[in-house]
């Protein structure tokens, strides 16, 4: 059967989503982790909402980065372990197409889900409702960029037995600009100043990473697969 690249992407995304929704506990774990980490900060710092509001963008973004990283380990792992990834690599579509589809599907079940629960966490941390739109938009762009960066890291560490810590070690330094602009945009939205600059920068980073990272992730997978 001859399948075009778009159809292949749709097929792989559907397969990934189907697999994820059959194991809802794994789908929920990163989200619960996100909620737990954000609960730690009021307990550790202070329950005063006025104080928390100053910390909120940073807390929210750090928690989002950590919970996205936590789930990145599984991006290629199970498929690499049972040989599915090699079959997908041989299916004649080119590995980049598969990488794009898998990473996008991964973002849908982790990053996009995180964006959807972020207003709950935002309310708990005292972020005003007027800043929610900026917060969600910046989180959406940031987690998508992080998924691409993470795909490179996951591709490099997929063959390793204990690659999880190493994955964080190599991806987190690359993700620091995201934290700066993401938390910056949210912070500006809370204080009511203009958010356009930081959001544009996040969007530029997202487009830049979306264009180049799939190829880097493909090379990374080829290094560990062959």
């Amino acid at each position, binding site marked *: 059967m001859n399948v075009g690249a778009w159809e292949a992407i749709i097929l792989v995304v559907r397969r990934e989503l189907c697999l994820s929704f059959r194991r809802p506990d794994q789908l929920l774990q990163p989200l619960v982790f996100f909620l737990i980490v954000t609960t730690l900060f009021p307990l550790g710092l202070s329950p005063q909402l006025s104080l928390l509001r100053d910390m909120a963008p940073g807390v929210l973004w750090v928690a989002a980065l950590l919970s996205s990283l936590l789930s990145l380990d599984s991006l290629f792992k199970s498929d690499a372990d049972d040989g599915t990834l090699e079959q997908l690599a041989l299916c004649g579509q080119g590995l980049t197409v598969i990488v794009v589809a898998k990473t996008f599907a991964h973002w849908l079940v982790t990053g996009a889900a995180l964006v959807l629960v972020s207003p709950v966490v935002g309310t708990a941390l005292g972020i005003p409702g007027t800043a929610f739109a900026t917060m969600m938009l910046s989180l959406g762009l940031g987690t998508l960029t992080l998924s691409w960066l993470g795909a490179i890291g996951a591709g490099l560490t997929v063959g390793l037995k204990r690659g999880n810590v190493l994955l964080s070690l190599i991806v987190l330094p*690359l993700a620091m600009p995201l934290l700066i602009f993401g938390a910056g945009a949210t912070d500006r939205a809370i204080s009511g100043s203009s958010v356009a600059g930081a959001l544009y920068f996040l969007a530029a980073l997202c487009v830049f990473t979306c264009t180049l990272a799939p190829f880097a992730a493909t090379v990374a997978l080829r290094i560990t697969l062959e």
Partner: protein
Amino acid sequence: MWTWFYKLASPPYVYAAAAALMPWFLGLAGVSIAYGLVAGLGFAPPDYQQGDAFRIIYVHAPSAWLSLSAYSTMAVTGAIGLIWRIKMGHAVAAASAPIGASFTLLALVTGSLWGRPMWGTFWAWDPRLTSELILLFLYVGVMSLRSAFEDPARGDRAAALLGIVGLVNVPIIHYSVLWWNSLHQGATVAKLGKPSMPGSMLWPLLSMLLGFMLFYGAVLCIRLQGEVLNRERQAKWVREAIQS
């Protein structure tokens, strides 16, 4: 005409070339650093604002420059190894990473020692110090990725790819951190035409930079010899080179 270029891919040639170049690098580095230290610490006038404390720049700025150029060397030679499958490229990259990480650490330590009298604190979340710190994390990531693989060839290629990704990211990280917070003094040397430093301060600094580069070259040659011997330990020429 191009045969010297192909020779660079041959381990015995690289080993011999590194051994031959090393004393030159080391000697010239000694001369250059000696002049820089004597002229910079002894004869350059004290800064009108910072007094004698500014003299740490003669160690701090060259290490910061070298931390970046050692990273680029590592990334570029790693890319050569990855793209053209030249094993010696990976050997140079593997030899360069720990030196670059040490220069980064040196720049961080001298930076914080400089910060104590100037800013009143050892560590400020200043953009340049912060991006230097992130650079150190990048080095650590590349080095641990290389050693995480059981198959050294695979580790080499994975580390090379991460090095390239990091090289693309270094300017992004640098400028985003710069945007985020600023306390560090602006560029003093790289202003073309009119540097904001008199010649009696500038020449020792440039001499230190040259000396640090040559010193890096010398250490790279030593480490490269070790890398080549370790990688080629099954080869016949290594046994002959060691026995002779």
